[in-house]
């Protein structure tokens, strides 16, 4: 019904049944999946913004959603978090259904929210920002470890959260969900608007998180950065998954993808 006129679109995703073995040519991935989204469609009122999207993330895996503005990346993250409710399809975490659960229940089930505006509270200090969410998992980082890993947050404990620089706020947003013990992080454009040296640091943090078996679903427009941290990539266009690439293919086609993304 929808005529797809998007430039780089090659093939439509083959219809459902992605729960079984990976389809031929599909990038390799861990067997145990943590997050599984299948057949997800989302609307804002009458406007359909996601169509039959199926993605998955395994523990210790970094998966990106790449696409132009308006491709539906943030809506997909918000749907997984439970902040966007006008959806159809299934979303499971470790096999248990999330769709009917509230955002706070999903957070307590292990999903960590790091929004594109960093989501730092102005009316809370840095320490309070860290301590606000409940600890939901035994692997949660103790506060001492958070401060050791992010010394800048230690120095500014009593600052109002929004008095930090953009990069520091990004660190705080990530530290907050690690302190909480989230098992799957939803990172919405963590590199946006930050200096290269900070972006590099965020890359290090993502690799550290990954090493602990935490899954990361990363929305990223910075193709170069995405290729340094991720295992797999989903390319979204007009609310659909149009490509699913392993990181090697992704790197090989970087130039083409950059053109496609208009960057």
């Amino acid at each position: 019904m929808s005529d797809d006129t998007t430039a780089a679109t090659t093939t439509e995703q083959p219809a459902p049944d992605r729960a079984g073995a990976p389809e031929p040519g599909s990038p390799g991935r861990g067997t145990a999946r943590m997050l599984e989204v299948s057949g997800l469609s989302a609307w804002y009122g009458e406007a359909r913004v996601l169509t039959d999207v199926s993605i998955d993330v395994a523990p210790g895996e970094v998966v990106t959603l790449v696409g132009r503005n308006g491709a539906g990346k943030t809506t997909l993250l918000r749907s997984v978090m439970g902040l966007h409710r006008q959806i159809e399809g299934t979303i499971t975490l470790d096999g248990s259904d999330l769709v009917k659960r509230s955002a706070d229940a999903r957070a307590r089930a292990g999903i960590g929210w790091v929004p594109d505006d960093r989501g730092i509270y102005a009316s809370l200090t840095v320490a309070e920002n860290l301590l606000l969410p409940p600890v939901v998992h035994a692997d949660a980082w103790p506060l001492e470890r958070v401060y050791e890993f992010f010394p800048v947050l230690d120095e500014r404990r009593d600052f109002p959260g929004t008095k930090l620089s953009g990069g520091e706020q990004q660190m705080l947003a990530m530290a907050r969900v690690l302190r909480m013990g989230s098992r799957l992080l939803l990172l919405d454009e963590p590199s946006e608007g930050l200096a290269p040296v900070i972006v590099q640091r965020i890359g290090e943090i993502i690799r550290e998180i990954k090493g602990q078996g935490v899954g990361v679903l990363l929305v990223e427009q910075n193709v170069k950065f995405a290729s340094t941290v991720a295992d797999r990539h989903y390319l979204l266009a007009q609310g659909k998954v149009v490509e699913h690439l392993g990181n090697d293919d992704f790197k090989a086609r970087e130039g083409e993808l950059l053109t496609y993304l208009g960057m």
Partner: protein
Amino acid sequence: MSEFIQYTLQGLAAGGFYALSALGLAVIFGVLGVVNFSHGACYMLGAVLSAVLLAELNVGFWAALVIVPILMFGFGVLMERLLVRWLLELDPLYNFLLTFGLTLVIVEAVKQRYGVSGLPYQVPAGLGGQVSVGSVNLSVYAIFACLFSVVVCVAVGLLLTKTRIGMIVRAATEAPDRTRALGINVGLWVTPVFGFGIALAGLAGVLAAPTRAITAEMGSNFIIILFAVVVIGGLGSILGAVVAGFLVGLVEAYGIAYAPTYAQIVIFVLMALVVLVRPSGLFGREEVA
């Protein structure tokens, strides 16, 4: 000079009523996103309940200061559970209309039962009369009302800044959705916060009872000024509500004293000026507006 000090005290006492009520309004707006039009009616109920408790059960001012806020907390909980809750998912305008309708019902019900002529209430023993400070005579009750409001505002401030409950309320006030996404069941706090906000309006009513005419209509003008207070302070800002409450009380008192013809207007001129210079209010954040 001595007159000026008297007006200032009167202004601060009246400002205390505004500050307490606006604090309740701000917390409710922050956590629920509801602009509670019935806040003036709840203030009136606080005053009426004090008078009724005294007349029918011989319960005095000091006891009323404790009992009435508890009763109003219960009233707020019922209001939220039975009515407000069902409209929270819809456009905020629905709850505005609901609480507006509720105001009419409350006001008419009070008129029906207690008439329109005003209920008697005395300044409590020990707080009557005047005290001389140098050459200035000050009303003891006004001093009490002012100090009491400040103490309650500071206590609420400490509750909000020093406790985990306060931290959650601040977070939910600033960004309810994000707070949910960080694992906090904001819904759990909605009912007690609503009750708490209504209780503060009731408390302001008790404090006002000895100095104001207690009638069913006493909340009608009050709510309008209260809206000016929250706009001046910054919608959703808790500190702003308190500071603007006292500020408006002062401006109103000076207006009545020095420019009685314009007394009703000065507050709104102040509001217009503040909005012109800082559209999100004195303590409001830009993104809130």
